[in-house]
């Protein structure tokens, strides 16, 4: 809401300064969003009298004026305006003044050799309108020497944000009432212009939809003269950001902006028969005042006559019956519409208007007759005409809410002590009636008041939130208790472990382009697709963390990054059994570009490989507390991975804890990336929670005897995977073998076709006594025998 200080003072009798008013507005919940003082822009511009006007000696189109500025000798001013002439009054910009339209600072200068001491200004130069055909012509009685800002009635314009619960403050009068309650002055009664109504309203008015339009009041005024509005009205509307249109339109806007009360004026000549508030017929159309045609539905209320719809009720009037310059007879409409229906209609039509904003939040049900009389009086005063009596169809809601209020609640809920008589004063100044028993009757315009807490808010906001003292929350004894859940601790730990491994944590969008989400969807997965995405790139909830990270890695590569190591901890979005979502915590990693850059030690740059991905997967699973010793390396990482260079890590055949490997070339192509790119996903929800462990570790003493190692080189079938061999070897003598580690893999020269050589270092830990040669031989034999079951033979 924007309004000028002058307008506010129409309704508020106050000595308060502008800063005091602004502070008060903020303090009572009408947040000041801006203040603009046009007087500042117009500093240095004065009402001036042109005494003489002569041709410029060296320029046909210029004149040399002598101008009386109200003090000192007249000034010589060169002027190019065709309407400049002796005897006229206009606006002179003195040297030093800044022209609002172009920021030019005026200076004493010579124009074609003739001295000029300022500039006579046009409307456009002062940003007061578009007219630039000549300089401003002021009436003969304009006082010479006066600051033009003061003469023009320039007044600071205040913009406040009105919260949606306060439609009563969507008019200047309501704001004045709140300020008066705050003690900033006295609210003036509304000045009602007198008029004489004669005769019954000649138009039949009806409401056929008592629910959507409980009240429809009207009146005809015959013989009006529409035209431009007077200055005071134009100035007020302009301060509110409204363009003056014509007297009749401007006056309805004045009623709305000044008093929060939308109304409508029809050109009576365009109406035919009874004017009725009713439901629209499905498919019925109306050309609205914004020159767009709307197709209506039966849930919407309209105002129509016998022939057509003239008004989308409470939202926007129709073009057909709008008033024009030639309008002579008018029908005024002031109605009460059901707020919820107005909101629904506006949303459905996608149509916003100042009227809708007020109706859907709720206008004052007690301000129909007065509003209509005020509008009538102003029209009669300014446009003439003879008004009929008011005709009323239906009646607005009239049941006032009564709240049994305990003034003690102000302290208990609001945390501030306010004396009871002050609470009473505040409520009464806002229009509440306070009974001796503290039954509080709410004014009908306060649709937002639902219960006692709302009255506390009224008291506290007027009394001053700054008077609320800070009171410490009661605290549990002792030091703070740990509050994090196991899942939270897991994520926090993993995040720092991943960062410690050299990965940069990213936060990418939860939504993806459809193609990217689709590429990573599981077979048959029903993705979550937004109905109203902000763009095609942010449309489908991610089924994996990798696509978002791949997109980021691509962006980085396009920017010239040599290496991207990103991770993200976030959710993947699945369907839950209950129709809602199943959001699975996940860690994703993408390794793109160079693992090590080219260097003097190692030569060429090295790309990431699948073992880099495996190392991270295991390291982070271990950090997450997963039993990594028991993990199985299995296949089926998904079609987005290189089929021969990817794997899953599982606890049992069904329980997949992670997938890792190289990204499939087809996936890279889909994401328009160059490879190779390695990736990892950890499925945090699959990691088994640690059992309720205490702090004490299991007992342990390092063995006294030194471990011994034995190397075995096996010839194995090419297709045998090392993991199987290691597991067999390790299991050959569980009591003695503490680890088995592959230290060489070789195929080619010296190794028969269809075979490869795998060398394993086995570590044996003696117990109380050192191994005897016989024991070592027995263990060796068991290792060889276990490997032999897989087709491995000891190399000679």
């Amino acid at each position, binding site marked *: 809401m924007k309004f000028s200080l002058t307008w506010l003072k129409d309704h508020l009798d106050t000595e308060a300064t502008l800063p005091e008013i602004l502070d008060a507005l903020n303090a009572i919940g009408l947040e000041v969003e801006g203040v603009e003082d046009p007087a500042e822009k117009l500093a240095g511009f004065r009402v001036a009298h042109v005494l003489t006007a002569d041709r410029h000696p060296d320029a046909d189109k210029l004149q040399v004026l002598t101008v009386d500025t109200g003090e000192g000798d007249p000034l010589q001013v060169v002027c190019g305006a065709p309407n400049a002439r002796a005897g006229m009054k206009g606006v002179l910009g003195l040297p030093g003044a800044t022209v609002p339209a172009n920021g030019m600072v005026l200076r004493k200068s010579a124009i074609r050799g003739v001295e000029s001491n300022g500039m006579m200004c046009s409307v456009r130069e002062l940003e007061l309108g578009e007219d630039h055909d000549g300089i401003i012509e002021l009436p003969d009685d304009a006082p010479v020497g006066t600051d033009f800002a003061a003469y023009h009635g320039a007044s600071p314009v205040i913009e406040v944000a009105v919260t949606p619960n306060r439609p009563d403050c969507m008019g200047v009068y309501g704001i004045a009432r709140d300020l008066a309650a705050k003690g900033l002055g006295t609210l003036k009664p509304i000045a009602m212009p007198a008029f004489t109504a004669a005769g019954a309203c000649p138009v039949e008015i009806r409401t056929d939809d008592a629910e959507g339009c409980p009240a429809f009041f009207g009146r005809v005024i015959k013989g009006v003269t529409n035209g431009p509005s007077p200055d005071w009205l134009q100035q007020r509307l302009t301060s509110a950001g409204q363009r003056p249109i014509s007297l009749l339109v401007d006056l309805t806007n004045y009623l709305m902006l000044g008093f929060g009360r939308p109304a409508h004026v029809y050109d009576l000549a365009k109406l035919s028969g009874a004017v009725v508030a009713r439901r629209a017929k499905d498919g019925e159309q109306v050309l609205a005042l914004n020159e767009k045609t709307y197709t209506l539905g039966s849930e919407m209320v309209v105002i129509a006559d016998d022939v057509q719809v003239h008004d989308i009720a409470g939202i926007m009037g129709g073009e057909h019956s709008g008033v024009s310059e030639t309008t002579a007879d008018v029908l005024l409409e002031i109605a009460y519409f059901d707020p919820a229906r107005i909101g629904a209609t506006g949303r459905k039509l996608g149509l916003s208007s100042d009227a809708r904003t007020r109706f859907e939040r709720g206008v004052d049900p007690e301000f129909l007759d007065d509003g209509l009389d005020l509008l009538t009086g102003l029209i009669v005063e300014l446009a003439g005409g003879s008004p009929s009596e008011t005709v009323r169809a239906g009646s607005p809601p009239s049941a006032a809410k009564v709240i049994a209020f305990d003034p003690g609640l102000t302290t208990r809920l609001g945390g501030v002590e306010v004396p009871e008589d002050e609470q009473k004063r505040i409520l009464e100044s806002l229009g509440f009636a306070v009974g001796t028993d503290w039954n509080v009757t709410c004014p009908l315009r306060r649709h937002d008041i639902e219960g006692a*807490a709302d009255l506390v808010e009224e008291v506290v906001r007027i009394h001053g939130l700054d008077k609320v003292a800070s009171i410490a929350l009661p605290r549990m004894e002792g030091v703070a208790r740990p*509050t994090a859940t196991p899942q939270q601790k897991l994520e926090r730990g993993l995040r720092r472990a991943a*960062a410690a491994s050299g990965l940069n944590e990213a936060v990418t*969008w939860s939504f993806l382009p459809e193609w990217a989400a689709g590429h990573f969807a599981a077979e048959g997965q029903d993705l979550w*697709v937004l109905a*109203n*995405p902000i763009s095609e790139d942010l449309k489908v909830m991610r089924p994996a963390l990798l696509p978002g990270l791949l997109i980021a*890695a691509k962006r980085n590569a396009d920017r010239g990054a040599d290496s991207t190591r990103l991770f993200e901890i976030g959710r993947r979005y699945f369907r839950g059994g209950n129709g809602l979502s199943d959001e699975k915590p996940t860690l994703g990693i993408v390794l793109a570009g160079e693992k090590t850059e080219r260097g003097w030690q190692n030569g060429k740059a090295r790309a990431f490989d699948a073992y880099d991905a495996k190392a991270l997967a295991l390291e982070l699973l271990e950090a997450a507390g997963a039993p990594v010793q028991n993990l199985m390396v299995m296949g089926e990482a998904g079609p987005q991975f290189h089929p021969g260079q990817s794997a899953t890590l599982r606890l049992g055949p069904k329980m997949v804890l992670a997938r890792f490997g190289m990204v499939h070339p087809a996936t890279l192509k889909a994401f328009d990336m160059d490879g190779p790119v390695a990736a990892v996903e950890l499925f945090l929800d699959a990691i088994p929670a640690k059992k309720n462990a205490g702090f004490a570790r299991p007992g342990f003493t390092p063995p006294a005897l030194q471990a011994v190692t034995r190397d075995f080189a096996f010839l194995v079938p090419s297709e045998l995977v090392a993991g199987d061999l290691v597991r067999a070897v390790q299991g050959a003598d569980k009591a003695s073998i503490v680890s088995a580690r592959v230290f060489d893999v070789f195929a080619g020269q010296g190794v028969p076709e269809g075979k490869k050589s795998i060398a394993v270092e086995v570590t044996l830990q003696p117990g109380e006594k050192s191994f005897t040669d016989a024991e070592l031989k027995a263990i060796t034999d068991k290792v060889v025998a276990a490997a032999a079951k897989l087709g491995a033979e000891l190399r000679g």
Partner: protein
Amino acid sequence: MTELDTQKQAALAAIAAAASLDALEEQRLAALGKKGWVSLALKTLGGMSPEERSAVAPAIQSARAEIADAIDAKKAALEVAELEAQLARETLDLTLPAPAAPRGSVHPVSQVMDELAEIFADLGFAVATGPEIEDDWHNFTALNMDETHPARAMHDTFYFPDRTPEGREILLRTHTSPVQIRSMLDQGAPIRIIAPGRVYRSDSDATHTPMFHQVEGLVVDKGIHLGHLKWTLETFFKAFFEREDITLRLRPSYFPFTEPSVEVDVGYSTEGGRRVVGGHGDAPGHAWMELGGSGMVNARVLEFAGLDPNEWQGFAFGLGIDRIAMLKYGMNDLRAFFDGDPRWLRHYGFSPFDQPTLSAGVGARA
């Protein structure tokens, strides 16, 4: 001079002149080896009479000792020289770069969430979570925004075409407030939680992204009032910004889920083009900045969440995590948060070892 003396002097000179361990060994063999002249001279002693022997032996013994000592000394000197020569050959250019370990980082949003958890844990708040794909009952209705509430339209909500089995609309949560409802329904009262997380609005410009992060705070207990809310936020901001001069201004506002509702402003000044939180907003060179919304939980919301508003009272607040992260750590572009640019992440991100703790101060200094 005896012949022995002559031989000894010659040998000592040769030892001193030996340029290498090999040359020295040659000298050792020539004098002390089995067939060396000293050894041979010693052997002659066997054939001598005791008188002869006692006259000759001391000279031979002493020559042997002298030569052996000279060889040992020379050997040690040669070894030192050889080691020095070897080390000199092994000299490296240590101005060459060492292998670089990649430096990882924690995202500012995560870091600030950890800071929040740490501070609020001390005040007895647990961290709660809830789904991001929500239904309209939890996101709106239970927060006192029924279908026709104008505030619903102001939320710029992302919707899915799907419905829950009860027919509720499914949407992306527009705030973390539905976690209030879920937590109260799950745990009842008394309750103290914060709920940080992702939220979504269909809004995108220089200062808005369609996804951002909020933290919700909720306290429900007996006798909780606005003064407690003010203290809690003041205490939090003092701990978060590690400044004692934090000044809050509460302004009346409107949120359907709180009554009374207050907007929270904090005083700040501008230093070097950056906003620095602290001081009174009305002091010279200072101003107020909006930090978030809050208020006393609306009685209807308590009812929706299964609590009796005559028994329980509480407050709730909501803060933008990205925003307070920017204020504290000096980022100026929200969009960069979600870009995944390693240069930005390394610059504004945090070391994994910057785990916030109260004893060290939760913040990580630049």
